């Protein structure tokens, strides 16, 4: 699979909430090769603190050679990224990893929690191009509160999907976990795609597996390289062996992952 390193100019910086941002990056080579579920490793500048690149899912690509990422400020690296402005440049390696399978299936369900929503939009768009009827498919989105969700919910809705939301504080949609929205519709569904916090994906995986529905999960770990070289990004696999998130994943069948 092709991989590129590009000096990417930030063309647009959108402020979603006070700590969630969406960047549009000029990255034609990466955009040209990207597949939903893949990610990029970003370096803000040549400062050695923080030292390592940070992984971000590709949120969207466009025909003009741009990619988008969405990120939340959680630490040093993301704080620094959030201080950049349109016109600044970041160093971008990608597209990395194995993305979501796209073969034709009826009745899909995309479940995103928090920043896990990011890769699902690229997936949702690509599925449309593959000819899938979005009105029969569900997009379930969860977040802490309303303003982390409205932008994304609207965008999935505009694609034609049936969108349901859940917030921890009840400010939008269901008051509770996004996983609660899955139970009532699970019977209809042939495949679940999910990305979000580990416990959330664990619940989704358990429910899907119980109902014998295929479930694709996008995993997160600490990554030093993103290239399969450091062997740092392991998680426990269901068979007792370790799985390597950056190269074998980040997308796995939920049955490959040890959830406890």
């Amino acid at each position, binding site marked *: 699979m*092709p*991989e*590129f*390193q590009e000096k990417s100019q930030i063309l647009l910086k959108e402020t979603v909430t006070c700590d969630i941002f969406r960047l549009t990056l000029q990255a034609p080579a990466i955009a040209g090769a990207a597949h939903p579920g893949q990610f990029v490793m970003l*370096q803000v500048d040549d400062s*050695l*603190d*923080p*030292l*390592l*690149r940070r992984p971000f899912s590709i949120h969207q690509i466009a025909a003009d050679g741009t990619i988008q990422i969405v990120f939340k400020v959680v630490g040093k690296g993301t704080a620094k990224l959030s201080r950049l402005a349109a016109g600044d440049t970041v160093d971008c*390696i990608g597209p990395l990893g194995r993305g979501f399978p796209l073969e034709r299936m009826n009745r899909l369900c995309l479940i995103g929690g928090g920043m896990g929503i990011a890769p699902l939009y690229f997936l949702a768009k690509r599925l449309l191009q593959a000819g899938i009827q979005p009105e029969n498919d569900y997009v379930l989105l969860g977040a802490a509160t309303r303003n982390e969700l409205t932008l994304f919910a609207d965008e999935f809705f505009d694609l034609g999907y049936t969108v349901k939301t859940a917030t921890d504080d009840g400010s939008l949609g269901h008051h509770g976990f996004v996983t609660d929205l899955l139970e009532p519709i699970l019977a209809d569904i042939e495949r679940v795609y999910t990305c979000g916090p580990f416990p959330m994906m664990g619940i989704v995986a358990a429910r899907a597996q119980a109902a014998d529905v295929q479930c694709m999960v996008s995993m997160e*770990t*600490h*990554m*030093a*390289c993103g*290239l*399969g*070289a*450091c*062997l*740092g*990004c*392991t*998680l*426990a696999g269901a068979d007792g*062996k*370790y799985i390597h998130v950056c190269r074998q994943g980040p997308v796995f069948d939920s049955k490959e992952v040890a959830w406890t």
Partner: protein
Amino acid sequence: MDTVNGSEIDLTVRLGNLQLRNPVMTASGTFGYGREFSQLVNLHRLGGVVVKGISLEPRPGNPPPRVVETACGMLNAIGLENVGVQGFLDRKMNFLRGMNSRVVVNILGDSVEEYGLLAERLTGVEGIDALEVNISCPNVKKGGVAFGTVPEMAAEVTRAVKERTDLPVIVKLSPNVTDIALMARAVEDGGADGVSLINTLIGMAIDPGTRRPKLANVIGGLSGPAIKPVALRMVWQVARAVSIPVIGIGGISTADDAIEFLLAGATAIQVGTANFYQPRAAEAIVDGLRTYLSEQGEDSVRSIIGAVRVVEG
């Protein structure tokens, strides 16, 4: 030979019998088996690639989390996960043979015997140019004391490897010792054709919130720019203590870093952690080295090896 401003600059260096097209290699465990970087780096331009440490049998490695970032560095406790010598020969060598760069195989074992057996298995294989012996591993038969912290044990491992191979043998030293020059002399006496240093410093990190170590293995190896001053000091000490070539490793990410090690007495250098945040670091160092030599009016990289100007008291 490369040409800059019309003049030819010779970047070749020799590690014993082994000639490298330039002194810039990639360090074991930080460059996979080469292929992982093939899309981003021109592998043919490197002096050599040292592959991830290989053991007799495949190893699963440590439980996660295995890596954590620290100030200008990182801790790793990969636990020497690797495909084992057979897996390496079957699945990794083919790609490596296709490179113009030298291939150095890093080996590790639990006992002196294992090192010897590994040397045997890797000798006579087309495309393998040298062995690098990682002695920062616990000697299981000696209660888990690291081979690399006891001069006699380090020398014994070196001899065991030398007896089973005609490949150049580079012994990779651990920095977690009181007297690095003593260790270097011990492996020189054991017959090593060169020494490389440093491997990682032992470190630790704790998460205040959970009160747990950030690495499942509790302790891990510290690498990256943070350790460069320690590595450079040790390379300088070792280069004055032994007459075999020294390969400098530790926090090298720019040409200036590499030049510091060459000036301190290293014949070649390895780029480690920098590959993770800047895959093209090694290539850029080759370019930067050439620019530096040209600016300094040198026509060979060998002129700067050990050329640090120290006024001794």
